[in-house]
């Protein structure tokens, strides 16, 4: 069984860390970062051409991390593949015994490093979950029988700080209907947003993992406030970063404290740490969070 699923079932506070595949074929740094958190997280969550930029694939990277003894979470978006390719990728994950799958619609091609590429979106996040659920039932989306049935533990994403938030909750319900059992949130930096969201979703049958993006500077926080949809960094955190001598260390501290507070208040069932290019800092965040 998936370690992640098991952790949720046991009522443990589950932790996953995001790992981006390299742009190229040198996996040295990625493997080092992964090894450093082995045994401390329930899963390493591998992005699928994140921000629509070209990288090695999520599946290949998951496989490499699996060889290192880590449990991967395969991210898969609807942007680059049609339903045949998506189901093929999911079956391939099944062959490798990769159970955790995070279904995403995906950033648009125009925001990435190949802006002229054709966006596919044959399936959205809901469609990917439906496809994976069908495969788990021993059939493809068209109802054709499979030789051997894969097992998945399905997840999806949600943006708690969204106006109107009801629209996110409606979609979340569809994702659950389609098979999602856990959700990762967009990065959250304030407890109030999580409290509201927990209240809104308390009757939904799915686990919630708070998304954590450690801040590296006050500038980064301001940039995210102005440019990244669904993200709100409170002023007091920006001030803390401004005043700090070592901004990166302060960002790690903020992230760790936040995870701890969320856990203590029972606002989420786990945390998903997205270090975005600073994966080497994940152990320090875990230390800070007491995990």
């Amino acid at each position: 069984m998936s370690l992640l699923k098991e952790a949720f079932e046991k009522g443990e506070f589950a932790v996953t860390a995001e790992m981006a595949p390299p742009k190229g074929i040198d996996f040295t740094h990625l493997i080092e970062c992964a090894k450093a958190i082995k045994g401390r997280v329930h899963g390493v969550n591998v992005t699928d051409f994140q921000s629509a930029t070209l990288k090695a694939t999520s599946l290949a990277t998951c496989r490499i991390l699996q060889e290192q003894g880590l449990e991967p979470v395969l991210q898969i978006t609807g942007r680059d593949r049609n339903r045949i390719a998506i189901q093929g990728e999911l079956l391939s994950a099944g062959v490798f015994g990769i159970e955790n799958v995070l279904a995403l619609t995906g950033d648009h091609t125009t925001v990435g490093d190949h802006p002229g590429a054709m966006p596919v979106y044959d399936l959205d996040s809901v469609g990917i979950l439906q496809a994976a659920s069908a495969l788990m039932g021993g059939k493809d989306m068209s109802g054709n029988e499979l030789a051997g049935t894969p097992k998945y533990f399905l997840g999806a994403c949600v943006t708690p700080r969204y106006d109107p938030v009801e629209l996110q909750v409606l979609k979340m319900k569809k994702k659950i209907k389609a098979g999602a059992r856990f959700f990762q949130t967009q990065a959250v930096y304030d407890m109030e947003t999580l409290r509201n969201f927990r209240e809104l979703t308390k009757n939904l049958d799915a686990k919630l993992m708070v998304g954590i993006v450690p801040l590296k500077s006050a500038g980064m926080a301001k940039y995210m406030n102005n440019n990244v949809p669904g993200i709100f960094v409170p002023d007091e955190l920006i001030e803390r970063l401004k005043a700090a001598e070592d901004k990166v260390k302060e960002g790690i501290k903020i992230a760790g404290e936040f995870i701890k507070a969320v856990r203590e208040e029972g606002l989420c069932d786990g945390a998903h740490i997205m270090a975005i290019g600073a994966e080497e800092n994940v152990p320090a965040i875990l230390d800070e969070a007491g995990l």
Partner: protein
Amino acid sequence: MVISEKKPFEEILEYLKDAKKVVILGCSLCATVCRVGGEPEVLEMKKKLEENGKQVLGYKILDPACNYMQVRKDLKGLKQELSEADAVISLACGDGTQTIAKLTDIPAYPGNNTMFIGEVERVGQYEEVCLACGNCQLGWTGGICPVTKCSKGLLNGPCGGATKDGKCEVKPEHDCAWIQIYEKLKKLNKLDNLEVIREPRNYAINVHPNRIDLKDVCNKCTL
């Protein structure tokens, strides 16, 4: 309406690099409304081509360029000019240009780029509204098309990417179609529509080229 824009003139000149004598054809309907294929634009094209050493043997505003029988009739009046010309420039939409190409024995070059099926908001302002997907979703969306107006063409609600002021992260000047749909459905008291999982689109129904013959679909038709 079919919304078109003018092609860069340099691109048209490149098409015409080996042509000396040309005929210009416009269209009385959409291209005229879009101000890319009416009489002023045809005359402007004539002037610019002449300034670039081309000889314009004739011109006509087709009424409209997308009606095969009508174009065939209209082109009879230009028979002499077309027999002497090296090329035709079409200031119609892509449809009109294809009709013209079908009915002429010399190259027919597009002078416009066909942009979308849209609504005339007011003079000179057009909004893209329909992608002709062949499977209209407007019945449950409050009359707002997510296939056209959501950058990702999503059918199951928004991605997480709307900005604080409800704009699309892909095209910041556009409203998020899903927030608009949500607001419209809320007004109509039909938010339940958003709880239904919409199955992935069936692209098999829209394999191009499509053809419709009313004689096939309507047995009372007297066509």
